[in-house]
């Protein structure tokens, strides 16, 4: 990519330590990463290498032990919990491996959730959530609760929730980890479509098939980036 792209993420020497009794566990040992708007990145690596930890830092769910992190102009490493919450609400949409939907709320209410905390009035909120569901072709399932939906549909609801606030950045941690290969393809197709529409996407996976959808692949091992390469153009996909 050229330097002309608008920088969204600027992370420098991110370190994350976890106290383990007497000693300290170094989950991240100094990670630097620059992401421009519109990029689609796959973060790969073995289990326990620090992928989720990095994604949580990028997603402002957690703060680094040391290092600097600027997201869309905000110095995240200096922010207080409530400022992080606001940033998550405005700039970030999360998609998790186990969906993390509210079991008692129906599909459209789950999608509305970020809008509640953005203080959008109920009618407008409902309208925006229905739009997001329509975009995914799920409007007929709006009144269904998560336990009345298939795994793929649940993940689509979660993606609708991640989209609804029009964030700068969509983060997905093993979004296909709990899905069969056919459903995984659909979900990845959807993510590629989102990227083509201009959304910035960061995806964590340890499956090469899934990572192959992303034109930029970052490999991480023992809390350090070991490779960062552009392998193709977005949307081609490498899966079978």
């Amino acid at each position: 990519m050229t330097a002309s792209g608008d920088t969204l993420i600027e992370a420098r020497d991110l370190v994350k330590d976890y106290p383990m009794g007497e000693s300290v566990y170094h989950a991240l040992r100094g990670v630097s990463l620059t992401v421009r708007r519109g990029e689609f990145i796959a973060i790969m690596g073995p289990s326990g290498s620090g992928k989720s930890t990095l994604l949580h830092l990028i997603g402002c769910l957690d703060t680094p032990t040391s290092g600097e992190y600027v997201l869309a102009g905000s110095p995240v490493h200096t922010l207080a919990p409530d400022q992080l919450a606001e940033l998550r609400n405005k700039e970030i949409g999360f998609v998790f491996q186990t969906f993390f939907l509210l079991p008692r709320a129906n599909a459209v209410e789950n999608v509305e959730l970020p809008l509640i905390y953005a203080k959008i009035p109920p009618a407008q909120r409902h309208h925006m959530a229905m739009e997001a569901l329509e975009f995914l072709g799920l409007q007929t399932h709006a009144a269904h609760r998560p336990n009345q939906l298939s795994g793929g549909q649940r993940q689509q609801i979660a993606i609708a929730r991640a989209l609804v606030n029009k964030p700068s950045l969509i983060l997905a941690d093993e979004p296909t980890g709990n899905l069969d290969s056919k459903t995984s393809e659909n979900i990845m197709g959807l993510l590629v479509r989102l990227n083509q529409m201009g959304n910035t996407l960061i995806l964590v996976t340890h499956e090469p098939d899934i990572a192959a959808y992303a034109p930029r692949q970052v490999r991480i091992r023992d809390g350090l980036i070991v490779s960062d390469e552009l392998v193709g153009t977005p949307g081609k996909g490498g899966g079978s």
Partner: protein
Amino acid sequence: MSAATRKEQIFGFWGSVAELFRIALRAIMGSKMRSFLTTLGIIIGVLAVVAVVSILQGVFQSFLGQFEALGANTLFIRPNYEMFSDRREGVRRLKLTYDDAQAVAQQVPDVRAIAPMLFRSDSIAFRSRHDTTTIVGTTEAYGPISDVNMETGRFLGPMDVDSRRKVCVIGHDILDKLALSDQCVGTEIQIGRDTYTVIGVVEKLGGAFGESDDDRIYVPLTSAIQQYGNDAANQLILLVQVRDAAHMDSAVERISNVLRRQHGLKFGQTDDFRTFTQEEVLKQIKTFTNVSTLIVAAIVGITLVVGGIGIMNIMLVSVTERTREIGIRMAVGAKRIHVLYQFLIESVTLSTLGGVIGLGAGWGVSLLTVWILRKTVSPTFPPAYVPLWVVLLSLGFAALTGAVFGVYPAVKASRLDPIEALRYE
């Protein structure tokens, strides 16, 4: 600024509260049985208070009604039994007589009328019916002072008293007690060992529990003295009406002076009689009301603390159970204050709902209690009465309990770390 931004501002704080209230209701209704058990402490507390207060208030209201009907220009005088630690000694040594009454009537110009009353409990009978009631020996003055209204016949007259006639005026309850017809004037009934002729029936009054003024028979004072003897004649109660309620205090003082002279009391000796004005009686009733309200308030306090601990306990469990939910909300942008308010509003809603249920159930219990008391103790037991302040106070305290005991769990929830909350299994 765009329309959306302005709309956001309008939505603002109350919009968020309405939102959180909706979330709270869903959580509460999501597990109805548990919510019910959680608020049981509050429900029982409010129930107990409403039941007790509504019955007490009903009784007080009916007392107040009676004494207010007495009028601000009347007072009672009775022997000062409190002078002796043993009431029987007082009955033996103290006197308040018809002579005293006449002396007061003649010597105190402020007094418009005075009715001496001799109270006696006695058996009564008509044909095969037997019962007991309160016999009141009095004079024709009693009628106007007490504002007695007749249903049929007439009240006692001066001739009845002067000639010691064996006639009687019966209260409304006596009709039932002796199975008398509405046209019983002229009928002869037994009072104790003597026979009296009914000359009138008093209109139904209603009255406080056990003390109904409808359950009475009025006879001429002279006839009562003849029947019950001098001991009874020496223990009268005087019902006095003054000309002007504004001069009640000076009237009481003059009456006291006359009675002291009558009884030959020396300077410094305490009065051997006591006067009760409507104002004093009302004051005593109000003191009693306040004391019982305080006792009730103490009970409320204790039960609500117990109820509050129950709520705190379940809210803590609820926060733990919903750690994942809290994590999800935080991940999509909920601030600490949002989570705090969510759980606080949930516990306030829960406890207020408990208060509402307790209020309804308490009202039901008091209606049932009054019904049972009417069947067993007294058919004229006054209806239960719930003043507005009891409703507001119970709901207010229930809500306050929810707020106070909800703070700790809510703070705990809001302090969760988003990542740890999401990881929670």
